[in-house]
């Protein structure tokens, strides 16, 4: 019996060892002469169970196996072949009832429709899934105005974070009179904790490229740039292959599909600067300068790259375009809420069971995203907060979990939708520490142009460090809010305007934790090192020496079978002894 085996070979799969699994499969089927087609695909989104392998046969249902290793793959294949699949590695199969695979059932996959399904570097696979049909329709059956109107009608808003209506943005660039125009895809996904764009580019690069070609045609651009961060080598590799394939087939280059439309696409690798996610900074970077934002107006639609009208869209925004053109604005706008249409891709990470990449219709409450799609908490510690939107976003507490996923509802909480990073935290995370973490990031990444962003974030960080070391004063909390207000008002670009958000939201939803650091000199989560101390309880210590062996700075002394002691002056408070002790003889206080 013949069947197909697909191996997920995106960055996270490879990091988990999918490459070795792929080799083991090829070897096993060859040695045993099994009639099977082994295919490479990318991220299907269930990163928590990587490496993932899917087995499908025409006459039987498909099964996705997780946590596959080179050692157990042979057994999995042979068992499937015999019709008695290995149960323990099954992550998803059509046999399972709906309640058991909410992870998939509650998702609507538009952007990710091909991810993990097709081989990303095979243009034939893409063509087999209605690839480049949207471009054909747009070029042959629609006028430029029709396309822009269709995107406007769909209600699609920019997925990079700010949520500006995409159709309107295209309209501005279209209306700008110029011989030369540019379109740019912003793939400089710099938010720590976010990997949506990486997965889309690795898993379905043609979809993004096709969206870009349609956009270029609509606004009248003949040249485009894909600005991708250099930390994503696999995404860049797939894009390069896809561009070459599309050029060979005549979807890129001169006289595309026999029309008079020409379009040339370049890849530009970022060099590592978070601020380059801001569009004016991104263009400065493409021009080979320091990536510093400039004053708007003029907006890029009037004067952008090298002074020419330019339209910039994010990866996920562009990945929606082909679906909208193929299925119509009306069908697209069935998903979502009144002002936020369609779906949103989120990268679930942190202390959540099913971490990975998901796509849900707008309007789903956060609770459903985290507990149903994400499977709830990973540890037995309770939910404490969820961080949305990276360094520009905010932390929401459990009371806010009924907030629905749409631009306006999330903005009201003080967080932002952002690009889609969602980091779930349990009670082992300290919110003062999280605020400090993000401010340290924005403070480092501030380009230094605006004084409030450059100096203000530094002052805020100093206050947070002071609080986390137990030297804070209650007035500091007012000072933080005052500085935040000034930074928001006094910064030119989104980086500065949103940099205080993590501090403001943690102050709003977790104020008691700040007060505990200031008044009681305690870190309730046990994270801030200056406020915690590890001690050995004499009655419980059996002298097993495990803690002393684990201690990286050798500050625990004591003979075997004697009570041990921690030298507090040398202790770096890493907690290795605390985690290692099997007798609960070490306390953190």
């Amino acid at each position, binding site marked *: 019996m013949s069947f197909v085996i697909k191996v997920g070979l995106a960055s996270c799969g490879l*990091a988990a060892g999918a490459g070795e699994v792929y080799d083991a499969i090829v070897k096993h089927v060859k040695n045993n002469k099994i009639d099977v087609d082994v295919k490479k695909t990318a991220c299907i989104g269930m990163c928590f169970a990587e490496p993932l392998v899917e087995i499908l046969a025409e006459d039987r249902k498909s099964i996705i196996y997780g946590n596959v290793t080179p050692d157990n793959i042979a057994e999995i294949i042979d068992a499937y072949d015999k019709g008695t699949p290995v149960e323990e590695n099954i992550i998803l199969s059509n046999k399972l009832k709906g309640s058991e695979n909410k992870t998939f059932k509650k998702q609507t996959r538009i952007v990710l429709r091909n991810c993990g399904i097709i081989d990303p570097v095979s243009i034939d696979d893409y063509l087999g899934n209605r690839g480049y049909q949207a471009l054909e329709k747009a070029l042959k059956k629609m006028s430029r105005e029709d396309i822009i109107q269709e995107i406007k009608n769909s209600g699609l808003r920019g997925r990079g974070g700010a949520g500006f209506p995409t159709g309107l943005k295209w309209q501005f660039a279209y209306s700008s009179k110029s011989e030369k125009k540019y379109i740019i895809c912003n793939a400089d996904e710099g938010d720590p904790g976010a990997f949506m764009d990486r997965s889309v580019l690795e898993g379905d690069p043609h979809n993004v490229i096709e969206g870009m070609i349609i956009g270029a045609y609509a606004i009248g651009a003949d040249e485009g740039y894909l600005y991708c961060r250099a930390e994503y080598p696999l995404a860049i590799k797939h894009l390069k292959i896809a561009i070459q394939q599309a050029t060979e087939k005549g979807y890129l280059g001169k006289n595309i599909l026999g029309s008079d439309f020409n379009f040339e696409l370049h890849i530009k690798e970022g060099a590592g*600067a978070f601020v380059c996610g801001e569009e004016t900074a991104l263009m400065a970077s493409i021009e*080979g300068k320091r*990536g510093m934002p400039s004053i708007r107006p003029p907006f890029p639609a009037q004067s952008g790259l090298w002074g020419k009208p330019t339209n910039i869209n994010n990866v996920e925004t562009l990945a929606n375009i082909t679906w909208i053109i193929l299925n119509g604005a009306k069908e697209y706008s069935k998903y979502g809420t009144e002002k936020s249409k369609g779906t949103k891709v989120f990268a679930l*990470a942190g202390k959540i069971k099913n971490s990975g990449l998901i796509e849900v219709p707008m309007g789903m409450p956060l609770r459903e995203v985290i507990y149903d799609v994400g499977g709830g908490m990973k540890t037995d510690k309770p939910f404490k907060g969820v961080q949305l939107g990276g360094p520009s976003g905010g932390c929401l507490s459990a009371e806010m979990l009924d907030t629905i996923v749409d631009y306006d509802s999330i903005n009201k909480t003080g967080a932002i939708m952002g690009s889609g990073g969602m980091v779930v935290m349990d009670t082992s995370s300290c919110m003062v520490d999280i605020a400090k973490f993000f401010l340290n990031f924005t403070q480092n990444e501030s380009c230094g142009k605006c004084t409030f962003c450059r100096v203000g974030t530094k002052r805020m960080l100093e206050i947070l460090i002071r609080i986390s070391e137990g030297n804070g004063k209650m007035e500091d909390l007012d000072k933080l809010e005052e500085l935040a207000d000034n930074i928001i008002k006094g910064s030119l670009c989104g980086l500065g305007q949103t940099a205080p958000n993590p501090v403001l939201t943690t102050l709003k939803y977790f104020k008691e934790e700040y007060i505990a650091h200031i008044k009681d000199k305690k870190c309730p989560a046990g994270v801030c090192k200056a406020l915690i101390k590890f001690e050995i309880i004499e009655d419980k210590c059996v002298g097993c020496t495990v803690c002393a062996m684990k201690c990286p700075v050798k500050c625990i002394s004591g003979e075997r079978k004697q009570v041990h002691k921690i030298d507090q002056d040398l202790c770096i408070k890493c907690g290795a002894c605390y985690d290692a002790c099997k007798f609960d003889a070490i306390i953190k206080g």
Partner: protein
Amino acid sequence: MKFKTEIDITINKFIGKKGALIPLLQNVQDIEGYLSKELMSYVSNKTGTKLAHIYGVATFYTMFRLKPKGKHIIRVCKGTACHVSGANSIMDKLNILLELSDDEDTTKDWKFTVIPVACLGCCSLSPVIMIDDNTYGKLTPDSLGKILKKY
């Protein structure tokens, strides 16, 4: 400069192209390992770009190094997911294993250079480090020793 011929070939590839400075610097850095003062002056003379402009770009982006680096690069992810999963203790342990003090990033034998990075995008495998092109996930401080031994 050790690799003058390669560097000349690379520079010539980019001369006359608009917006070429960043990819040019990325390419010559790949050859020499870092951007020395000598190398930046050389690029400036060859391309007619002001040295101040080159230095400005080189110091703005995190990918450019102005100091020599070790044989292997260890990137320690400091992203949000890794942070909440214990990236700090991974960093502490690495510094101990490699005997690095706070202001050092390269081992005395020039074998490893440790660089903290904002996010490697493998959040579901947190905490994560990347040694050259290989990613290691779901780390604990204890698992580091074994990984370093491979290099």
